[in-house]
């Protein structure tokens, strides 16, 4: 009986939802109609065929979007997960518009990438699968070019190689702002760039929020993916992951998360989860009566 009530409530919320959402099928139908594109004057290093192939892949396999080796694009990739799952049609339309006209609007944001970005897109090398993903290069570079946070203050202008540097980095407030402005989503965020969120039982907090929406964790990557054996590690967050599932048996927490173009399953202790977590952003579709 209780379950029925919850379902009915969800139905009402869905109907009142003001976020323009679309299905994967709608995006597939849209992109199928586009056989060819004329080579864009705005993106000299990008061939229409490979651009379209990349868009198609992202629509058919939204988990496959990959930020590239050694880049600071993980925040933008996490953002893309939300877009490709919640509104793939908007993604497809926006990317085609941006390719053809060199400018486009998404949500409240008008994108007009700088000439340096137009030259850089399609020319990235040694970034793994990102090398052959020209549409993803346009998307990540355009996001980094447009959105600025305090970490970008000293490097606002793109130069070759800046995708690995502070120019592309995403502080926590900037990430939450991007989600709000681009997707009209409500973001309940707790955490910061320096201090862990003051939550006693992190597992309980996260799992209680995960019934709806998308859960993004802002974490210290040097613990999750060790790259050195040094005992000295910077206690700052450096990576965004999408948390898809979390469960706990005794003192072992199992998480399934998305990053680097795929899903991973990992077991950790509550202490370790607390140690790596700096930000928790719960993104849900905005309702008509939302504040």
């Amino acid at each position, binding site marked *: 009986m209780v379950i029925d009530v919850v379902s009915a409530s969800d139905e009402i919320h869905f109907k009142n939802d003001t976020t323009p959402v679309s299905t994967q099928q709608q995006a597939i139908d849209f992109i199928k109609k586009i056989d060819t594109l004329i080579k864009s004057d705005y993106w000299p290093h990008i061939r229409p065929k490979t651009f379209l192939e990349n868009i198609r892949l992202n629509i058919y396999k939204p988990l496959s979007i990959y930020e590239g080796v050694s880049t600071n694009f993980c925040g933008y990739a996490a953002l893309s997960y939300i877009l490709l799952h919640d509104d793939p049609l908007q993604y497809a339309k926006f990317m085609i518009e941006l390719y053809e006209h060199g400018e486009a609007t998404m949500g409240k944001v008008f994108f007009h990438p700088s000439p340096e970005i137009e030259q850089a897109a399609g020319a990235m090398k*040694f970034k*793994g699968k990102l090398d052959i993903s020209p549409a993803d290069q346009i998307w990540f570079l355009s996001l980094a070019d447009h959105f600025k946070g305090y970490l970008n203050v000293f490097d606002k202008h793109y130069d070759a190689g800046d995708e690995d540097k502070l120019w592309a980095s995403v502080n926590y407030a900037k990430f939450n702002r991007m989600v709000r402005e681009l997707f009209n989503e409500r973001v309940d965020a707790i955490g910061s760039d320096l201090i862990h969120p003051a939550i006693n039982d992190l597992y309980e907090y996260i799992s209680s929020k995960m019934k709806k929406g998308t859960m993004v964790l802002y974490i210290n990557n040097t613990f999750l993916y*060790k790259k050195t054996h040094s005992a000295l590690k910077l206690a700052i967050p450096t990576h965004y992951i999408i948390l898809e599932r979390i469960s706990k048996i005794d003192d072992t927490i199992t998480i399934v998360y998305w990053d680097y173009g795929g899903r991973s399953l990992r077991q950790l202790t509550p202490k370790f989860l607390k140690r790596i977590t700096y930000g928790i952003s719960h993104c849900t579709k905005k309702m008509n009566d939302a504040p």
Partner: protein
Amino acid sequence: MRHRNLYQILFAAVIFCGCNSTQKIVTTYYAENEQVLNNIEQSFKTLYRQRPFSIEFTDRSFNFFSIEIMTDSLKYIYEFGINEKRIKDTLLKYALNKEGILDIITQMRSIQCTWINNLDFYVDQEKHSLVFISMRPVELSKPFTNKKYYIITYFSQPQYFDNEGKLLVKKQMKRTRKINGEIFWRINDKVCYTISARFR
């Protein structure tokens, strides 16, 4: 003032010794461990074809390791102590060759090998792959050594190098190829090395 000069001389000596030992490792390490390294690489390639995986030693004393097992939908990441019995159960669960994997782990441990993985790279839109092996030799563990990992890459095809032995993108293109942000140097046509601050 005299003390200051002494400190400067000592500091220079430490740096000089550090550089020398690094150079020595570069030139001799592969030759000394060639057989074991080639065995690890060959076994890894064979087993990787059956099911993709990677192995990482997570601590300096080589008592704990992590294995990443790739399936169609998920990458499973598990960490074990070197003598834990549940390792075998996990390998069986994912239909991995138990003896083969355990043999790789033993060989990796014997030469302080911290990580082995398969990396993809692209040339002219075409996907290629290489085997990436990181080591943490004792010689590089000394203080004042920033770059603590010796990395060896095994390519499937012969590669191109410039006159200094730097790995190039293509024969015609004199652009240096970077892997994981590092420049690599020639050992032979298919094997390259670098020294890095990171093992992955």
